């Protein structure tokens, strides 16, 4: 394999070690990838919230949040939803374990992990935007790190029980005393014995304290729109609320101009932004 490591546009080869089907509709899959080149693996150092370009040669590239924890040393996980119109996601979903793709990254900034130390952490997430937050939860809950953070509260919801992702971990976290886990669905089914309710509603019910707390919130634009108000009402200050923005991207390096919003580039100055920063951005974010 001959790639110039100094060329930021050439992807590092990775092989698909395992594929997990996350949801009932079978259009959300987690891809576990291992680097083919040891140097590439060692050079790929990332923090929770960052993303990488998944490069499917012949189809194109897609910016996907890193779902595995930075402490998962020998592999990376990416959870990808297949869109019918998406060439990359569709090609990826048709691939099998053992096949090779490419990864470029890590790109973007991370959640403010340093700032979060010594504080309570509240995570609110909806749908399959849960990916980088799952990375964050795994990181915080690790033996190495748990003591650095105070209470960890997570409110996570999906449209229906079948659409919940990372189901085995959700169960684990619900049973753990290290984390207060609230899982909800917009509408349950016959076998669902858990909570029913939209994420913003459940957030209001749980009413996590904003005292010495940081809020990490991710979800589709419509969910963010309805969740921001209760978050602010709970007393979270705009500089303590963080979310991850999405924009169509090409280079991931702040050069191609596609993800430019105001004077920022979502790929470079984001994708994680404090709500305080978002309020200053000109274009409506959601």
């Amino acid at each position: 394999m001959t790639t110039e490591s100094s060329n930021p546009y050439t992807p590092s080869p990775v092989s698909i070690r395992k594929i997990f089907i996350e949801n009932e509709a079978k259009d959300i899959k987690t891809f576990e990838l291992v680097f083919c080149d040891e140097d590439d693996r060692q050079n790929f150092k990332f923090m929770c919230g960052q993303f990488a370009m998944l490069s499917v040669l012949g189809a194109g590239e897609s910016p996907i949040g890193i779902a595995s924890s930075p402490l998962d040393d020998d592999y990376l996980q990416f959870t990808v939803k297949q869109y019918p119109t998406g060439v990359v996601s569709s090609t990826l979903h048709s691939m099998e374990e053992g096949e090779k793709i490419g990864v470029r990254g890590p790109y973007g900034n991370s959640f403010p992990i340093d700032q979060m130390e010594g504080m309570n952490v509240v995570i609110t997430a909806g749908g399959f935007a849960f990916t980088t937050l799952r990375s964050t939860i795994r990181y915080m809950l690790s033996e190495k790190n748990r003591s650095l953070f105070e209470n960890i509260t997570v409110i996570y919801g999906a449209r229906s029980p079948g659409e919940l992702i990372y189901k085995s971990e959700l169960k684990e976290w619900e049973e753990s005393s290290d984390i207060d886990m609230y899982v909800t669905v917009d509408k349950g089914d016959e076998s669902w014995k858990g909570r029913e309710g939209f994420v913003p509603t459940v957030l209001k019910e749980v009413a996590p304290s904003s005292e010495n707390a940081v809020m990490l919130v991710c979800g589709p634009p419509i969910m963010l729109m309805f969740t921001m108000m209760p978050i602010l009402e709970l007393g979270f200050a705009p500089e303590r609320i963080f979310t991850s923005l999405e924009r169509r991207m090409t280079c991931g390096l702040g050069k191609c101009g596609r993800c430019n919003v105001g004077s920022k580039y979502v790929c470079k100055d984001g994708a994680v932004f404090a709500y305080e920063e978002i309020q200053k951005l000109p274009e409506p974010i959601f």
Partner: protein
Amino acid sequence: MQMSDTETKLRQTAKELFTDGRIDVLVGYTKGTLPLRSRPVFITNAEEVDKLVWNAYCSNNLAVYLPRFFTVQAQRKKDETPPPKVGIIAKGCDIRSVVGVIKEKQAPRENVVIVGVHCAGMVDLAKVELLMGGERVYRSDETPEGKLVVTTRLGKEQSIEKEQVMADACLDCQYPTPDGADIIIEGTSKKVNEELYKKVDDFEAMSAEERWQYFEQEISKCIRCYACRQACPNCYCKVCFADQTKPKWIGAGIELSDVMLYHIGRIFHQAGRCVECDACLRACPMNIDLRTFTRKLAKDVKELFDFTPGLSFDEPPPLCTFKDDDSQDFITEP
């Protein structure tokens, strides 16, 4: 410059259309910021009618703007406002274009008021520049006799007859009168030139290899900016075949085969629909001779199906209909 008779009548008509409440917006022409240019303008009330002009630089085909008044935008706006009533200033070629756009359901007939203007032919800026040694016209004045006195950046001055620099589309125009319009502004149209399709005949007389070579030579100037497509009123597809990713019909770069396929696709999609207004040609920054190719298709359609687009709201487009006496040559004599 003295305002023409047509211009006065046009402004008066526009004023009445607004005061009578027949239209909410009028798409017309106004003075440009450059010599020998007029440009499109949207006016929304009677007070703005003095912005309207009518002269030999009103070449843009305004029908391209019609669909955008009637698209349904599925965003979060909960607008329940009914679609607007749109007036459109149109010369003969543009009227046929408007008919096509309405026939293809991109604008409802009852929401469009076609204000027809007699056309004496439009000046082709590219021809003026070529006459002046490829130089931009810095300044242009019109004499009372209707001659153009142009000055270039390098100070070269010349007096030109408008006929010398009339657009090819206008020289070949078969429908300069505004038939089919809802309102017709009084005036006189240019005479129809009987020498139909001469340059296309020359193109057809070439051998297949020569024709391909010419096509290749012209198309290799293309920078894939898509100005031709955007200027064409018939190119209203939400997703152009050239931009589709699933399936991917052609590559997006400037590989010659991809560029040629794009043009072949676009031009052939115009068969039976293209009114030869040359909006594509005028928009092209690289001066590609698109005209020869679009006209070749128009000629073929005329010969094979005896059809000229845009003359009737009712006549169905030839590529959507089948008649028993349609030519079968393409099967029997490929």
